[in-house]
Structures are given as C-alpha cells and as structure tokens.
C-alpha cells in the first residue's frame, strides 16, 4: 500500500514553463516532507523540504506548497529548464522517532523541451 501518492507519472513541459508535481498522503503522523531529484544513473538527491507548520517554501526556482487540511503538497518548478529534466520523488517522514525513515511517492519523470 503506497502511503504517498504522486502524480503525474510523467510530465513534459516547454522551456520557461511551470512544472507542477502533486503528492497526497493519508498518514497524519508524517511530519517532514522532502523532495528528491534523480538524474539517470545517479542516486536521488535532496532538493527541497518543508515541515507541516509552513504553507510554502521557496528556494530559487523551486517552491513547495503544502496544504495540511487536504493532506496534499506539491512541487512547482518555475522557468523550467532542460537541465531540470529528471525524475522527482516526493517523500514523507513518519515522526522523529523514525529517524530518517522516508516513505516515497512513485516518482514523476519530467522532460523539459528546449
């Protein structure tokens, strides 16, 4: 049972456009929500993260929007570039006592066309 549902599975965006990836969760014990970026042949790398007491976090062109009541969060990539083409994973941590045990979404393969 996937506790974090991610959509879409794949996304094609033109250069300069906005890429939006959505995630939804059920477990209200989740307390930390990171996003990871993965390039082919590499391991996932932490991109940006948010805690549920914040509704939005922005780092450069990347923004996380968080809706606690809806149990949803999303990644927005502004001014998308071909170099952003990668697979993106949302994730959630189930409380501090779990250390850094993360539950991941299924992943979204983003392609940014030049």
């Amino acid at each position, binding site marked *: 049972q996937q506790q974090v549902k991610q959509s879409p599975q794949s996304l094609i965006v033109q250069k300069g456009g906005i890429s939006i990836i959505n995630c939804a969760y059920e477990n209200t014990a989740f307390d*930390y929500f990171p996003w990871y970026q993965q390039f082919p042949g590499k391991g996932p790398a932490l991109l940006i993260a948010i805690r549920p007491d914040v509704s939005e976090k922005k780092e450069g062109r990347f923004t996380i929007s968080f809706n606690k009541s809806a149990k949803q969060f999303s990644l927005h990539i502004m001014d998308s570039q071909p170099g952003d083409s990668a697979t993106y994973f949302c994730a959630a941590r189930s409380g501090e006592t779990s250390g850094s045990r993360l*539950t991941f979404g299924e992943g979204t393969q983003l392609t940014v066309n030049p």
Partner: protein
Amino acid sequence: DAGITQSPRHKVTETGTPVTLRCHQTENHRYMYWYRQDPGHGLRLIHYSYGVKDTDKGEVSDGYSVSRSKTEDFLLTLESATSSQTSVYFCAISKGPGELFFGEGSRLTVL
C-alpha cells in the same frame, strides 16, 4: 559528495544464488538504509540500521537480510536470489532528520 560507496555497481546472477551488496561510508553516520527502486513503485525501504549490530525491517524486507559489524559498512544479503529481486538497490545515510544522502546504486539482475 556524501561519502557513500556501493559495490558492486552492476551484477548479473542466477536464481537461487546468494548475493551480497556492500555499502561503505566515510563519514561515521549512525543511520544507514537500503532501498530498492522499481518503476511505478518509487523507492521502498528494505532494512535500516541505527548503529553497529542494530538493524530493523522496512516495508519490503522479505527475502533480505542485513548486517552491520562496523559503523562504516552496511551489507545487504539476498540468501537465495529470485527474479522479483531484480532491481536497483540504493544505500543511504542520514545527515539530519528526514535528510537522506544516497549512493549511486547497485543494479542487480537475477536471471
């Protein structure tokens, strides 16, 4: 560079054979993890360790065992490999709450 080395990076084996994947870290972190990555499933936790000789199961632990006799090494063993264990395996360390740093992966093919 998170200081994580996985070996082997690629392996092809036959059904029923034992396989051990090694994860080595150079930064003395307490928590280490093994995930597998499969299309449509994202990354799923197999086992993790919170110290030398301290390990626990993840969500897909059946058919896998782990050992951690030294802080720097975390081994994942498939006692008798099956085709369903064909996957890419990632080791990760935790540098902070919810912050994982992954190795470059070990691609395993079980024929």
